[in-house]
């Protein structure tokens, strides 16, 4: 997409069957937080089509490196060093540029730096677990971190989360706003996890599973994982066409 060209059409209707249902009793926390009424559909107005856009200027130099962005000078986080990279696209395979991506995760032992996490695994003094970046013109992004550990969580039984990284994703319309999680290829916990399994479509789970990417590994440094993210596409691009006609 050429710089300055603006996508301003209404969004494709969301395929709600691809997303988890609100009420998923095997994930216990949903029981009292799931609305009973169906969501009301309506024609997108500018309130849905527009959205905040964040430039590269927002970013600090280490925002996209979780191995050092909370570490003491000269130190770094403990764990398997990884690079997570990919592209942010819409359903029509158009790159989504200048989009803010935020990530958070547990440390290598499966412990979050959060007052509500009481897991016995220790905190890593050099790991905060928070980072962000902004997508480039071609929708690409990349960040460094350590591979998070799986962790147990209270859900009424012996439940363990697969290793995962949480993603908060902006598009260029507020209706594209999405929060999701990235899993790791080959993790046996994926099939056992009540949160992953709130998604009924196996293809949609595969889409959230990052693939080992040896081509982008940095030898003697970090293993790469590839994770592409897809946001809703726009039904029409009338404004774009009009601009081109000018």
């Amino acid at each position, binding site marked *: 997409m050429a710089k300055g060209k*603006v996508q*301003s059409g209404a969004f*494709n*209707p969301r*395929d709600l069957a691809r*997303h*988890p249902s609100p009420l*998923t009793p095997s*994930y216990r*926390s*949903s029981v*009292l*937080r*799931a*609305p*009973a*009424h169906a*969501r*009301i*559909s*309506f*024609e997108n*107005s*500018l*309130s*849905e089509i*527009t*959205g*905040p856009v964040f430039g590269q200027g927002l970013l600090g130099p280490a925002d996209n490196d979780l191995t050092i*962005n*909370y570490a003491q000078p000269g130190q770094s986080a403990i764990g398997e060093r990884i690079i997570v990279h990919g592209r942010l696209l*819409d*359903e*029509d*395979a158009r790159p989504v540029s200048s989009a803010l991506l935020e*990530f*958070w995760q547990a440390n290598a032992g499966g412990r*979050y730096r*959060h*007052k509500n*996490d009481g897991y016995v695994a220790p905190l890593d003094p050099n790991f*905060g*677990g*928070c*980072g962000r970046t902004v997508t480039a013109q071609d929708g690409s992004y990349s960040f460094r971190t350590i591979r998070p550990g799986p962790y147990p969580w209270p859900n009424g039984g012996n439940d363990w989360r697969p290793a995962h990284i*949480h993603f*908060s994703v902006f598009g260029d319309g*507020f*209706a594209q706003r999405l*929060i*999701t*999680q990235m899993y790791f290829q080959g993790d046996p916990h994926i099939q056992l996890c009540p*949160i*992953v399994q709130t*998604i009924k479509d196996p293809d949609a*789970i595969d889409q959230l599973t990052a693939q080992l990417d040896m081509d982008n590994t940095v030898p003697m440094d970090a293993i790469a994982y590839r994770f592409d*993210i*897809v*946001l809703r596409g726009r*039904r029409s691009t009338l404004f774009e066409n009009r601009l081109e006609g000018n």
Partner: protein
Amino acid sequence: MTETGKLKESASQTAGPYVHIGCVPSFAGLTGMYGGRDPGAEMVTAEARGARIVVEGRVLDGEGAPVRDALIEIWQADAQGLYHSPAETRGAADPGFTGWGRQPSDAKTGQFRFETLKPGQVPWAGGQMQAPHISVWIVARGINLGLSTRIYFSDEAEANATDPLLQQIGDPARVATMIADKTAQGYSIEIRLQGENETVFLDV
């Protein structure tokens, strides 16, 4: 299935109980991250036109208990009804106002609080004016797909009566769940996830 798309939207997963680490790190105690300023904390960044208001409220679960680990985002037009967005084609929005806010609910009381501006009116798809409103997006542990709703204003009864979305919803009891009450500093609203007077959520 989407008809036009070549790709499919990535599935949502819950924001979980630790969303604060990634989205409001200073609130979560990660001191110094992002210069100590949580994204979206400040919406009015310079002198801006329009009335300053405080929008506050709580998100309540199916038992009426405040949700104390939610993250709430809002998106709105400036006082002239213009959005600070590349997709805004009608003119330049007020440079002193971002239009986007993000706040956690308070860990003890569940209260959220935004310092913002009263939005102007924005047209509907057909060109007719909508009543002034704020778009709201809520995520939390136990919410599998972010919940979208809107906040309208109780002192805009005339505009609310002809708002196309509120007219589509129709049922006055349901419409009332989206209308914030006037307070001394602005407006207040209770967002009910479930049960009696469940808030209207939108498939935006």
